[in-house]
């Protein structure tokens, strides 16, 4: 069976990688391709080109009275929210036929609003992202020039944030991945092959965020960093006593990257988003529908790798500028921007790539050159190095 045509938007990822290679002179970044980074999870897991169920299986496109919504039910507790979503205690959380029937009676915009309020990752095929790919507040003081290797503190989990930190590592930074010892990065167990590729060569520090002294140690470590990558909701960090804006104002040159589903303006600050639903919110499934007449997902959670690449580029550019800043990156905004760039470059070719993708439904993803997986640190392996060094500084 022949494999699928190129993953849509992989050309846009190539352009971002090329810009990053030029900016940093990194041979390792130059050697990467968008096709590999957008397709490696699918290749590692033998995914097939998705239709209405995402390649990874966690998200599905469903009909409403007036359009389509993408609903992720990937977390163990998401289904327990379905009775509240439909306002009916008799909803059977695990009956997918019933779910489809109930959704078909709702209006897309209303159910998406309600779902987001409940904390579900849900998107409307016809929506426009509420914010841009990146919003910057450049209120940090200038960096103090230093000959040492830049230090990246990676507080993120899953795909986009860890990929961004990994790319910064390839560009020459030292990367320390921080995990909460009671809420680890679930990808370590869930998808070890992808975890290894995204987190290879990072040091690993495990912290119990419920303990004040360990939170203090984390903040002390952050104060030594050049770049922080995190994907927490701002309120969660603030509730832990970590104030990103204040740290950016106080620590010279600190570049703080917040990866979000939909930005932090207004209500969106509380919305959840994962790779597939954010791709839909960014307009990718609408473009696929326009080009092919079919409803489906394009690529595999491509908002994740696209955002990882874009966030790394923005962080490196900001570092080159030499002043601290907080960069709030929106996954749906990144997809919309990549789509707009491809449309601008060659609208006909974009439509053709989406049409080809839709025609390949059910076939294996394109083969990609798999990257080797290097050393992966055990959870908390480097606590002594990074936390003790901190207590003495």
């Amino acid at each position, binding site marked *: 069976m022949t494999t699928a045509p190129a993953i849509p938007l992989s050309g846009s990822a190539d352009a971002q990688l090329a810009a990053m290679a030029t900016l940093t002179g990194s041979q390792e970044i130059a050697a990467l391709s968008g096709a590999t980074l957008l397709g490696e999870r699918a290749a590692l897991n033998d995914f097939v080109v998705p239709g209405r169920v995402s390649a990874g299986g966690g998200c599905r496109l469903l009909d409403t009275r007036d359009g389509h919504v993408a609903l*992720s039910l990937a977390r163990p507790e998401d289904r327990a929210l379905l*009775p*509240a979503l439909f*306002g009916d205690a008799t*909803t059977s959380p695990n009956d997918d036929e019933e779910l489809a029937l109930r959704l078909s009676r709702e209006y897309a915009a209303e159910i998406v609003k309600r779902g987001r309020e409940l904390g579900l990752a849900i998107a409307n095929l016809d929506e426009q992202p509420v914010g841009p790919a990146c919003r910057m507040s450049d209120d940090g003081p200038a960096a103090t020039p230093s000959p040492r290797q830049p230090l990246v503190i990676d507080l993120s989990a899953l795909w986009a944030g860890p990929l961004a930190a990994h790319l910064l590592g390839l560009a020459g930074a030292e990367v320390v991945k921080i995990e909460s010892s009671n*809420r680890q990065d*679930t990808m370590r167990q869930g998808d070890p092959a992808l975890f290894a590729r995204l987190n290879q060569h990072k040091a690993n520090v495990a912290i119990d965020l419920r303990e004040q002294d360990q939170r203090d140690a984390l903040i002390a470590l952050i104060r030594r960093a050049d770049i922080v990558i995190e994907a927490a909701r701002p309120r*969660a960090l603030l509730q832990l006593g970590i104030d990103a804006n204040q740290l950016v104002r106080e620590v010279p040159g600190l570049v703080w990257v917040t990866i979000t589903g939909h930005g932090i303006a207004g209500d969106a600050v509380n919305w959840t988003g994962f790779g597939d639903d954010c791709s839909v919110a960014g307009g990718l499934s609408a473009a696929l529908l326009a080009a092919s007449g079919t409803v489906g997902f394009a690529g595999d959670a491509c908002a994740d790798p696209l955002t990882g690449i874009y966030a790394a580029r923005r962080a490196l550019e900001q570092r080159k500028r030499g002043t601290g800043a907080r960069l709030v990156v929106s996954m749906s905004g990144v997809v919309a921007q990549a789509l707009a760039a491809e449309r601008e470059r060659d609208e006909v070719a974009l439509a053709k790539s989406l049409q080809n993708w839709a025609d390949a439904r059910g076939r294996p993803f394109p083969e990609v050159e798999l990257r080797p997986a290097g050393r992966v640190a055990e959870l908390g392996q480097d606590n002594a190095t990074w936390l003790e060094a901190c207590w003495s500084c």
Partner: protein
Amino acid sequence: MKPGSKLKSAVCDTEVMVIRCGEGTIECGGAPMGDAKPETPDTLSPDHSGGTLMGKRYVDANGTFELLCVKPGKGSLAVSGVALSIKDAKPLPASD
């Protein structure tokens, strides 16, 4: 009371969405919550003034009630006088 209903505190800014519920009175700051805020707010009971946190989910001991805070306030949540506690954050998916 059905899941998905929104309730407002009679004593502070707190608003919750009901995820799950059973028999009992949902209270905030020591006073029953309702569909609308009263014209004149009730007084916040000092025994129920721990406050609510945005986005946190609150549960009773046997898991009958679960409330999602959609607007924070000064009162704390209870069912028929028994305080609710914060539920741990949702585990992330194995991969997204």
